[in-house]
Every structure is written in structure tokens, then in C-alpha cells.
């Protein structure tokens, strides 16, 4: 049985429907990448799973039981790293407090044990202990992003929703964190919903990939397979755009194709 199951989930903001009848499954220890056009509903999907927006319709289950019917504390098993780290880091708190808070909520142990745990978490995300007494405003973009990841991991979630969680990191740090995610899922069985625009990272990390386009899941399957032989016209464009950006930029015909996007005919052919 899958750990997390999203069934026919729709999310709307007033009259804007951001996600239409999306279904996906996530097993323990599995990494599912979610890719898609900007504005296609990826963050909305994650926010609904995290319980931050109320689904318009559909169901989200954890271990087979409907999350909407369970006590709120069970949501702790699902932690989200937000696309904008500023949204999740309280500007008044120091990094130490931000990381200690989840440990206190978990009743992790006495102060000394928590301090040790905080140090471990920092090391995992490659941050210096010197940052502990700073507030988010005195951190760089990538440092904030890593504090947000450490905070989510401090909760010992069973499901991690990582929304563009590595987007501000230099390639060498990014590489370390991809390795971290891979080893966590092996060692702890954590399941990860990995939302990303970076197909190279997706290729390296994910087992399966789900493609969203205009609020719908248009393609889903084995990661290597989908990226090697994309079926939906948007996925085809996406893969083509990542092969050689320098060349693509020199190619007016290709740029024109991108500007045209996916035509209605192409879409209905599916």
C-alpha cells in the first residue's frame, strides 16, 4: 500500500482552478518528482497535501486513512519546504530557535540532546554553526533555503514536500543535498515529493516523475523512461529545452516554438 495517496485532488482560489483532479501515489522510501510549467499547480498540490489550502474536492490519505478526518497532529508526518524560504522562517527568531522549536514539539529530549541534534542537522545541510545566532535577514538566499530544509527534517517527517527546495544553491552544495535526500530515503524510508524545474536533478534523484500542465497531470511514470521518451507535447518541449540551452538560445526557430507553446490541437491529440 502506498504511504501517501492523492486521489482526484482539485484546488481552487476563488474562480481560479489551480489543480484539476490530480491523482498520485507515493510509497515509503520513494522519490516522486513533480515538474511542469510555471503556474501549472505544483505548489498548490504541495500546499493541499500539507494541509495549508483546503482542497476543492478529492481526497488525501496517509497510510490509507483520510487526512481530513484525522487529528491535526498527524500532519506532522508531512513536512514542507516552501518555494520562498522567507515564507516559512519567522524573521524574529534566530536559526537556533527555528531549529529547536520542532525538536521541542517532538519532545526530542533535554537541551543538550537537542543542541547536539541541531548541530547534526546543520552539518547535514552544510551550514556553519556560526549561523545559529543569526536571524533570517542576515542569511544569504541559499543559507535560508538550507535552514528551511533542516527545520523540515528536524520534525522527522515520513513525507517531505520539497518545493524547489534546492533552487538557490550552487551546484556543489546542491549535489551534496541531493546525496543527502538519497541517503535519507535509503536509511529512514522517508518519501519525497520533489518539485523541481531542474531536470538534471530530477534525473539524478527521482524514481518516478509526474508532469503537470495547466492544472492537470498529463504524464506520469518511470523517471528515466518519461524523460527519454516523453509523450505529452509539453513534456517534449521541456526535455528539448534542457538539452543544450546555449544552442537553443541561438536558434530562432526553436525559440519561436517555445513562444507558441503547446497548441490546442496538440493537446487534444493526447
Amino acid at each position: 500500500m502506498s504511504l501517501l495517496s492523492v486521489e482526484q485532488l482539485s484546488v481552487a482560489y476563488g474562480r481560479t482552478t489551480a489543480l484539476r483532479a490530480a491523482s498520485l501515489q507515493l510509497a515509503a522510501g520513494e522519490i516522486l518528482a513533480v515538474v511542469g510549467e510555471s503556474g501549472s499547480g505544483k505548489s498548490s498540490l504541495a500546499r493541499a497535501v500539507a494541509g495549508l489550502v483546503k482542497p476543492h474536492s478529492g481526497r488525501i490519505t496517509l497510510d490509507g486513512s483520510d487526512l481530513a478526518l484525522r487529528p491535526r497532529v498527524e500532519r506532522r508526518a508531512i513536512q514542507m519546504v516552501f518555494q520562498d524560504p522567507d515564507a516559512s522562517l519567522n524573521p524574529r527568531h534566530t536559526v537556533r530557535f527555528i531549529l529547536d522549536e520542532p525538536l521541542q514539539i517532538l519532545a526530542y529530549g533535554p537541551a543538550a540532546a537537542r543542541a547536539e541534534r541541531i548541530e547534526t542537522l546543520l552539518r547535514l545541510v552544510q551550514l556553519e554553526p556560526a549561523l545559529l545566532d543569526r536571524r533570517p535577514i542576515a542569511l544569504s538566499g541559499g543559507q535560508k533555503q538550507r535552514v528551511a530544509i533542516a527545520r523540515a527534517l528536524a520534525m522527522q517527517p515520513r513525507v517531505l514536500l520539497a518545493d524547489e527546495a534546492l533552487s538557490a544553491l550552487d551546484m556543489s552544495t546542491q549535489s551534496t543535498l541531493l546525496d543527502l535526500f538519497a541517503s535519507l530515503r535509503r536509511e529512514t524510508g522517508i518519501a519525497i515529493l520533489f518539485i523541481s524545474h531542474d531536470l538534471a536533478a530530477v534525473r539524478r534523484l527521482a524514481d518516478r516523475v509526474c508532469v503537470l500542465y495547466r492544472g492537470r497531470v498529463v504524464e506520469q511514470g518511470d523517471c528515466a523512461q518519461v524523460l527519454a521518451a516523453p509523450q505529452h507535447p509539453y513534456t517534449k518541449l521541456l526535455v528539448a529545452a534542457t538539452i543544450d540551452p546555449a544552442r537553443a538560445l541561438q536558434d530562432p526557430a526553436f525559440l519561436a516554438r517555445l513562444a507558441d507553446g503547446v497548441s490546442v490541437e496538440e493537446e487534444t491529440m493526447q
Partner: protein
Amino acid sequence: MTAPILELQSLCIDVVAGPTAQRIVHDVVLTVARGEILGLVGESGSGKTLSAFAVAGLLSERLAVSAGEILFEGRARSFVSEEEMRALRGGRIGFVFQDPLSSFNPVRTIGSMLVESVVRHQRLGKRAARAVAIAGLAEMRLPGSDACFGAYPHQLSGGQRQRAMLALALVNRPSLLIADEPTTALDPTIQLQILALLRRQSEGRGSILITHDLGVAGAVCDRIAVMQKGRVVEIGPCSAILGDPQHAYTQRLLQARSHA
């Protein structure tokens, strides 16, 4: 030869809040010529954003330029008043913030911020400014419809917000564009279109593109500067930096990229 649009002469930035000043950016020397896109890449926390903030006069009061000089269009920054600086920002200097969510005014719609900026810097009437604003959004592949023009920043997706920020930075056709990780929230199909646009518009403008994506840097930049621990450790034409990196840190970055 025409003077560079921007020149940083041994720029140093210190944290001045504590009992002793602590240096976080050391002796940065850079120039940006007219028509040039300079890529600024490097380790997370290496000082890319703060160097850019210093140029645009955006450092918080806990930080200060402690040595060196910044020349914008030949004029030394130390002779530019705070008021003049405010007039330059959003006008001749366009700035794309790394965190669009926290740098937008949350209680203003995207459209009203754009219109206000066009009215102020181009001295146009409201109606004409509105048309310019909508064209600016369209250029970023955002609909000028109420869905975006009338939206508050939190009502947009991450990538839509990033493009709205780009529209705001570019709407007055600045002579210096500083874009701090401007495409991190864009999927590759839209990212390429935006990069092509930056390239097309770069004539007559000096641009600094801060990015951790070496693919992006290689595709659009003329030269690349690599920062580590508050210093520029290597600078040169794209082909040299990406093809034959000299500094150990640059070599490590390129290695990480080929592993991805």
C-alpha cells in the same frame, strides 16, 4: 573606448552591528561594459547578493561599504545622495531581487506597482503608463489580464512572481540591470524565452546576472566572475572559465555540474 557602465574598485563590505566590524566582502574588482552581460556565480553565501545590494544602495543599516568605490556611469557612488539613489533605482538601475515574495509590497497589486514606477520614471500619464505596464507583463509571458495585473504578489505562483519582478525591473529600460537569480522559479521552456529577451535587450545596457546555474551563465553571459568566501577568485570570458577553469573552486563547481 567608452567608459564602463559600472565599475567596482576594491569594494569591501563589513557587518558593522557588532562590537567589532567583520568583513564579509573583500576587495571586489569588477567592471561591466555597455552591451555586456557579466555572470556572477559562486558558492552560496559568498557575497553575490551583498555586492549587488551595495551597487544599488540597498545594504541594511547593519552592513556598510567600508572601503573601495563604486562608479555608476562614471560617477562615484560616494557623491550620490540617498535621494538621487532612490531616483536611480527602478529607473536607470533595474534590480531583480532573489526573493521576490519578501521584496514586493504585499498590499499593492502587480499592476499598480508597475504603473506607479512608469509614471514616476518615464513621466507618462496613468493611461499611457498602464499600456506600458501591460506590455511589460506580456514581454514576460504573463497575461495583462486581471489574473496578473490585478493580482497581489501572494496570489501568483513562484515563477509568475519572479517574472512580475523582472517586468518591474525592466519596464523603464534601465541602463544597468542587476538580476539576482532571476530564473530559479521558471521551468526551462519559459526560462529560455526570458534569457533570450535579456540577451536581445542587452545592447546599450550593462547587465549583471547572478546565477548558480553554470548552464545559464554559459548560455547568456559574455564574461563570468566566480566568487567564494567574499572574494572574486576568478574572472574571464565564458569560454575560459567554463572550458579551462584555473581556480580549484571553479573546477569543483564544474565537476559537480557534470555529476548532475
